[in-house]
């Protein structure tokens, strides 16, 4: 067996099927899924509880071909399903082009789910042929059980069952279960970054934001009210939130928008004024008037961002947007503003927008966020998602 290197820090995990298959009843699907979890709970100190949607640790869905995670399925046969290791969220996806079945004929859901959940718990593929974690589907097995190789693998991470009646599974519904930060384990390959729940507590209560940007030194900051947070791949850096006024000289609270251009300068907007920084260093001569520095752009904008699709700058206010092209004489052409509805899938109020690690453009509205697909010019499938668990480690 092989440990991938990350694990769940909590032992009571919740799951839900957010997108079932039309080939089986939801009850059939959930019964097989619960059976699959029970294989692991019977042999470790873990419990798995079905929840009715909302925040769960492990989301399960059926989808076909490209389904939003960049790892598209391939139609009937070959790849049947895939799952994410704990540090990547733990979710499990099943190729809905397969003939899923609860019996002998077709692709047995119980067997495939049991394997995928091994990944969700932190196990990689095993080259022991009889192991459940071997990569290949071995046809219908009416006596599926964990191989000693699987048991050694799971107990090597979470320990043996400690409860009497080892590893029972509560089919109870819990409607509000927060997703716990996860631990990236003590694997020598994966840096251990402790969850920062004390940093996140404040923003987890109400995870909407005012502005968000990545400065030229590559650090990403979220601003809300009079506080700001530095974000990392998993949530909030230790020691945050901090007061904006302590570190960003002259910058007011309750910002409207933030924007970093390719020359490394970061702009902050509030009311009719804007400020200019290089990382956290305020540049002299600011604030200035938006009407002077960004002619054609209104005051009190909601968001400002550089779109990854064409590296042009956009401003949003209400249901309208403006494109600002500093390279031409009239930066805002006459045919702006345009309707935000042209950006398919976005809500009609945006709090903030920004380009994450020079890749995708993300839009934030209330407690939710949207990832934009630049090629199809629409919001990615299975968005919006909750800000809390995905950006602030709630």
């Amino acid at each position, binding site marked *: 067996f092989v440990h*991938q290197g990350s694990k769940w820090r909590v032992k009571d995990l919740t799951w839900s099927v957010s997108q079932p298959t039309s080939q089986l009843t939801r009850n059939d699907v959930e019964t097989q899924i619960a059976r699959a979890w029970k294989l692991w709970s019977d042999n470790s100190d873990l419990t798995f509880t079905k929840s009715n949607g909302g925040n769960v640790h492990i989301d399960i869905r059926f989808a076909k071909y490209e389904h939003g995670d960049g790892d598209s399925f391939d139609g009937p046969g070959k790849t049947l*399903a895939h799952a994410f*290791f704990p540090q990547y969220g733990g979710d499990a996806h099943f190729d809905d082009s397969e003939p899923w079945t609860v019996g002998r004929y077709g692709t047995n859901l119980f067997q495939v789910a049991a394997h995928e959940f091994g990944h969700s718990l932190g196990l990689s593929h095993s080259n022991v042929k009889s192991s459940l974690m071997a990569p290949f*589907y071995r046809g219908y097995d009416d006596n599926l059980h964990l191989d000693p190789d699987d048991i050694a693998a799971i107990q090597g991470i979470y320990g043996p069952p400690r409860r009497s009646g080892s590893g029972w599974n509560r089919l109870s519904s819990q409607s509000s279960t927060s997703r716990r930060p996860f631990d990236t384990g003590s694997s020598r390959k994966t840096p251990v970054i402790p969850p920062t729940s004390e940093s996140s507590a404040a923003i987890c209560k109400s995870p909407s934001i005012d502005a968000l940007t990545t400065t030229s030194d590559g650090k990403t900051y979220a601003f809300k009210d009079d506080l700001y947070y530095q974000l990392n791949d998993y949530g909030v850096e230790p020691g945050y939130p901090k007061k904006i006024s302590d570190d960003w000289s002259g910058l007011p609270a309750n910002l409207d928008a933030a924007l970093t251009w390719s020359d490394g300068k970061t702009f902050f907007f509030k009311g009719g004024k804007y400020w200019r920084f290089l990382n956290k260093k305020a540049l002299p001569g600011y604030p200035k008037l938006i009407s002077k520095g960004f002619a054609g752009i209104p005051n009190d904008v909601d968001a400002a961002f550089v779109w990854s699709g064409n590296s042009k700058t956009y401003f949003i206010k209400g249901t309208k947007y403006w494109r600002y092209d500093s390279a031409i004489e009239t930066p805002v052409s006459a045919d702006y503003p345009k309707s935000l509805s042209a950006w398919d899938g976005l809500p009609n109020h945006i709090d903030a927008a920004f380009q994450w690690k020079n890749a995708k453009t993300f839009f934030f509205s209330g407690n939710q966020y949207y990832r934009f697909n630049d090629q199809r010019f629409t919001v990615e499938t299975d968005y919006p998602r909750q800000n809390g668990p995905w950006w602030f480690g709630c």
Partner: protein
Amino acid sequence: GPLSPINSEPDVQGYLQRFGYLQAPNPETGSLVTHEHFSEAVKQFQSFASLPTTGILDAETKRMMNAPRCGVPDITDEERPTENGQTHRRRRKR
């Protein structure tokens, strides 16, 4: 099914890259896929598929490459250092 079977060497190379046995050639670093790389990757696959590890692309090996399976790579990025020693991360949380 409608899928094209894995038969030709490019198909096999694509399969081996997809499931972590072989690194994609990297024009920036000039790293290429040599015959040794390819043969070693086939051996690793054969070990996972509980086949004789000959490194030779025989019919049984191709048959297993067409077998239904899990989409997670057999050798994940965390386990596979890149040429410059850094570890790739795939499928980030966001």
